[in-house]
């Protein structure tokens, strides 16, 4: 169509008019001239219509786009026309041949209408009003030529454009239907596009247009980037699927798992990139020095799978463990400071973890800080308790049940009618339960200690003489304890008869204590072992010096000029290297922990589900509903497991740089495995908890674990001297000496001087004091803020209560007024009726009034919201004054009350009585 128009050239305007005329006819907006023109150019219209129909076949959208373009063309032209009209009167004269100024203007209006109509067509909803139309029209007529505008008008235009832009941006936040939004969007976009270019003059205009274009591009880029970002979040779809089946609490575990995975990924990158890879690439290769070689005695079995599985043999003498690293100060052509890097990565791991955990906690606290008050307890239960993500009927049933119980509980709590039937018994039972739990904890602690000591004995005898169980006893016992003790606690907690929420907290606390106790017993046992190894080391060190001396003596006595005999590094006697031992212990612990987790998952969940599912066909009772049934997904237990696993990583990562890598692997596998297990063999929890409330609870636990796990690691680093012949710090008195060494040799002299001054107690102590003071200050300010908050809350509450009182008073007053009114009414009615002869009527009337009064009284009683509302509905307190006005207005008409269902009856009485007068 556009092509044909271009061909027609000067006839364009006429075509436009034709179009307009057609539309106008459609709207039955009769225009004589238009009609005439239509008659003249009938065939052309037909052709254009034909084009139109052809287009209809096309995609509707493209048609619309073209239409829009068409229109814009038309508008541009129109602007042109008007410009000509304004500037050159001669040209206006020529235009007047075609229809005159009037028609041009009309045309413009009709153009508008056409657009309008299109909008209406598409929307099928008459959202836009004619007023709007006219306004815009005026606008258009005014602002056609930006050059002719005054600055104020320009400013106004700019404002209008900005307003539109804001509208576009805020459109998605409007609760309108999509059609309305689409229409508004298109309109506003059109408006903005049209007038944006008109703003500014000359150069400024170009710049403005450029700026606008760039912002548009930037927005688009941002949107694409947003899309890209969401597409990059791993496992998003998996988690959403779980979310829709099991609700947000189960999904929160997986989100937590993903978060952990992210942290471990970064830890892994740190250790892998800065420690393992440089040592493997640039350090001395395997077999050049004793610490990098498998000793002769172990060489035969170094490649056995059993040994490798225990992280002995070749695995022990590799970058995976502390002992492999050389104490060479700078390695490779990069002069990479290996020992320094090792130390800093160790410190950085801990520092980064602290930072991330605390930052997340702070963010969570910010988010949840808003909803701390308990003033909307019931309303929240009512309005926000449904989890819309639930897409599984079973979960939905459980949710129904839990909501009902929560309602009932809340009502009970409100009534405060919970009587403890036997407080002494429950107290006794609770003490007993705690005693039992303590026994369990102590027992498990002792068991671990015993097992670790026994394993040391086995280790002294040599591991080869013992069975598999005896070799892996420690880890197995720890894992088994971690598996069965929580079940035991669960049984014990049944004694206590706590509220489920409180019970869950106790349960979590106990499991936490158990894990922590186990971990610390393990560490204490490890410390014993470290001390043993260090004594062993002393002896070996002494032996080595004598051995070296003898070696030296023998070579000297044989031939003084001969080169020193090269001894195979595998043959050199070496110390026990307690750091590697610690690392190995942790790695084994992680491995066995992972294995038990997976095996329990497979047996406890999968096998159980399979058995229940298939044995159910041939069993005497319903297995699915009855005893074994399917397992639930235990969110809290799983989260605790994850947290402790992470604690072990933090503890052991310094001595075994491979730990973060292992953990990443483990988390990766558990993500898939657990997702699969949850989806295929778990049923939703019966007690459905909200995810948001517990988030920071878990985070706090993570922080505690982080602190508790870095404590022993830092203790060993600071107090125990490193082994003399293995690891990056060998030969130094303490591990952190590496910092001093670097300061002395790698930095200019003034720097170390400054550093030594800075580390002077005279400077450090005031600094610490200052920090303490700052903390104190911040603490007190936050406290005062909190107090102010509480104060404000109180004020609000008192105000609220006052309002309530006022309302009540008003209601009472209204009621008394009403009663008075009614009395007078009944009196006057009685008077009337006394005057009238019919007694029957009077009785009826009295009855009516009585019943109504009773009804009304009920409604304005102590409870503002009436208990049961039937169809005659609400007669709330605030509306009570209304009757007075009624009363005043209809002073002479007694018994005529609003909100009174049978108000016509007294009237009926009155009318006849009046007639009788």
């Amino acid at each position: 169509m556009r092509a044909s128009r271009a061909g027609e050239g000067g006839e364009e305007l006429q075509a436009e008019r034709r179009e307009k005329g057609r539309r106008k006819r459609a709207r039955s907006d009769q225009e004589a001239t238009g009609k005439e023109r239509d008659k003249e150019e009938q065939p052309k219209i037909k052709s254009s219509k034909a084009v139109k129909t052809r287009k209809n076949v096309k995609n509707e959208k493209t048609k619309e786009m073209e239409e829009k373009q068409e229109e814009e063309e038309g508008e541009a032209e129109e602007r042109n026309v008007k410009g000509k009209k304004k500037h050159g009167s001669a040209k206006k004269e020529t235009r007047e041949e075609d229809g005159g100024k009037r028609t041009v203007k009309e045309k413009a209006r009709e153009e508008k209408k056409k657009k309008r109509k299109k909008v209406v067509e598409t929307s099928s909803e008459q959202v836009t009003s004619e007023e709007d139309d006219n306004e815009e029209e005026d606008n258009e007529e005014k602002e056609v030529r930006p050059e002719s505008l005054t600055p104020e008008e320009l400013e106004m235009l700019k404002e209008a454009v900005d307003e539109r832009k804001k509208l576009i941006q805020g459109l998605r936040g409007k609760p309108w239907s999509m059609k309305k939004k689409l229409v508004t969007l298109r309109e506003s976009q059109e408006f903005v596009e049209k007038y944006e270019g008109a703003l500014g003059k000359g150069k400024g205009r170009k710049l403005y247009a450029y700026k606008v274009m760039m912002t548009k591009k930037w927005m688009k880029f941002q949107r694409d980037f947003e899309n890209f970002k969401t597409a990059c979040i791993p496992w998003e779809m998996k988690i959403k699927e779980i979310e829709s089946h099991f609700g947000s609490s189960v999904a929160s575990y997986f989100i937590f798992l993903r978060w952990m995975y992210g942290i471990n990924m970064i830890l892994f990158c740190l250790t892998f990139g800065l420690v393992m890879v440089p040592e493997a690439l640039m350090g001395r290769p395997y077999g050049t020095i004793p610490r990098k070689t498998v000793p002769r005695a172990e060489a035969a079995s170094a490649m056995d799978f059993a040994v490798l599985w225990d992280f002995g043999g070749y695995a022990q003498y590799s970058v995976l463990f502390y002992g492999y690293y050389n104490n060479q100060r700078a390695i490779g052509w990069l002069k990479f400071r290996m020992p320094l890097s090792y130390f800093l990565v160790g410190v950085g791991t801990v520092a980064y973890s602290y930072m991330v955990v605390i930052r997340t906690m702070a963010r969570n606290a910010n988010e949840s800080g808003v909803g701390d008050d308990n003033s909307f307890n019931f309303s929240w239960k009512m309005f926000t308790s449904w989890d819309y993500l639930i897409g599984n009927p079973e979960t939905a049933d459980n949710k129904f049940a839990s909501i009902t119980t929560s309602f009932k509980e809340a009502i009970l709590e409100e009534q405060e009618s919970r009587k403890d039937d036997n407080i002494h018994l429950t107290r006794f039972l609770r003490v007993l339960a705690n005693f039992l739990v303590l026994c369990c904890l102590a027992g498990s602690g002792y068991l671990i200690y015993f097992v670790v000591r026994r394993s040391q004995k086995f280790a002294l005898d040599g591991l080869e003489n013992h069975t598999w169980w005896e070799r892996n006893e420690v880890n197995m016992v720890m894992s088994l304890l971690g598996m069965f003790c929580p079940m035991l606690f669960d049984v014990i907690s049944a004694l206590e008869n706590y509220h489920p929420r409180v019970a869950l907290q106790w349960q979590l606390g106990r499991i936490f204590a158990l894990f922590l106790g186990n971990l610390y017993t393990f560490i204490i046992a490890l410390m014993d072992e470290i001390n043993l190894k260090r004594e062993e080391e002393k002896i070996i060190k002494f032996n080595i010096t004598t051995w070296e001396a003898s070696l030296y003596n023998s070579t000297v006595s044989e031939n003084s000029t001969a080169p020193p005999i090269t001894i195979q590094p595998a043959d050199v006697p070496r110390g026990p290297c307690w750091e590697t031992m610690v690392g190995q212990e942790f790695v084994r612990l992680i491995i066995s922990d992972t294995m038990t987790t997976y095996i329990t998952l497979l047996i406890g969940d999968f096998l159980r589900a399979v058995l229940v599912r298939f044995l159910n066909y041939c069993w005497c009772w319903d297995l699915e509903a009855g005893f074994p049934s399917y397992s639930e997904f235990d969110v809290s237990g799983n989260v605790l497991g994850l947290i402790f696993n992470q604690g072990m990583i933090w503890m052991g990562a310094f001595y075994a740089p491979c730990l973060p890598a292992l953990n990443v692997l483990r988390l990766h596998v558990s993500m898939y495995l657990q997702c699969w297990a949850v989806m295929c063999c778990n049923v939703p929890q019966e007690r459905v908890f909200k995810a948001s409330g517990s988030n920071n609870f878990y985070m706090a636990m993570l922080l505690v674990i982080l602190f508790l796990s870095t404590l022993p690691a830092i203790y060993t680093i600071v107090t125990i001297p490193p082994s003399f012949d293995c690891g990056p710090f060998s030969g130094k008195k303490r591990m952190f000496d590496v910092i001093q060494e670097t300061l002395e040799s790698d930095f200019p002299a003034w720097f170390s001087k400054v550093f030594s001054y800075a580390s002077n107690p005279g400077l450090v102590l005031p600094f610490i004091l200052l920090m303490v003071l700052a903390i104190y200050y911040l603490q007190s300010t936050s406290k005062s803020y909190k107090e102010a908050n509480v104060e404000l809350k109180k004020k609000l509450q008192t105000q609220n209560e006052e309002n309530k009182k006022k309302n009540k008073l008003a209601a009472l007053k209204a009621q008394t007024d009403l009663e008075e009114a009614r009395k007078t009414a009944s009196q006057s009615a009685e008077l009337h009726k006394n005057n009238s002869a019919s007694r029957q009527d009077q009785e009826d009337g009295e009855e009516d009034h009585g019943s109504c009064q009773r009804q009304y009284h009920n409604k304005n009683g102590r409870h503002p919201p009436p208990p049961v509302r039937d169809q005659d509905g609400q007669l709330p307190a605030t509306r009570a004054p209304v009757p007075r006005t009624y009363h005043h207005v209809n002073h002479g008409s007694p018994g005529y009350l609003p909100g009174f269902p049978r108000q016509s009856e007294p009237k009926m009485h009155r009318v006849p009585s009046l007639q009788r007068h």
Partner: protein
Amino acid sequence: MGTTASQLGKDMLSEYQELTFLTKQEILLAHKRFTELLTKDEKDLPNTRVSEERILTLPELKSNPFRKRICHVFSTSEYKDGSLTFEDFLDLLSAFSDSATLEIKSHYAFRIFDFDDDGTLDCGDLEKLVNCLTGETDDTRLTTEEMRQLISNILEESDIDKDGTVNLSEFQHVISRSPDFVSSFKIVL
């Protein structure tokens, strides 16, 4: 408009992105899921309405106690039959999406809870709401006494102007302080 059939145009896609809180992938997924609900010859027609029953076969809505209300609120059909076009469907998903604002979520929540569409939550609405939340079975239902107590407690808390009903601003006031409304008022495909 009206490109719901077969393919979404690029312009439509960007407009939908502009108008909803959904990302491109989500819109495409929604489109896919929506066209799956259509029969074969309906796919070629633009602006097809999908009846409420068919919308409710979506697993995401199947077990929601407010499913009918949700359809009803988001439907633009003149017959009030709860049928949805693709655009209504997008509106629904946008309001229930992760990134939708509290304001829009609470607005739609209010309309969903307003069972008689009169603009306020009165006792009848609240009662229906409680019944929805406690499920259809008799053992989870509240007794009338409990129901009365519950509703009077709710009105006590959230009916600020004491007119016996909860209106939109009161509702939004209550909701805005809730810690987990935004996280639970979500539906994802």
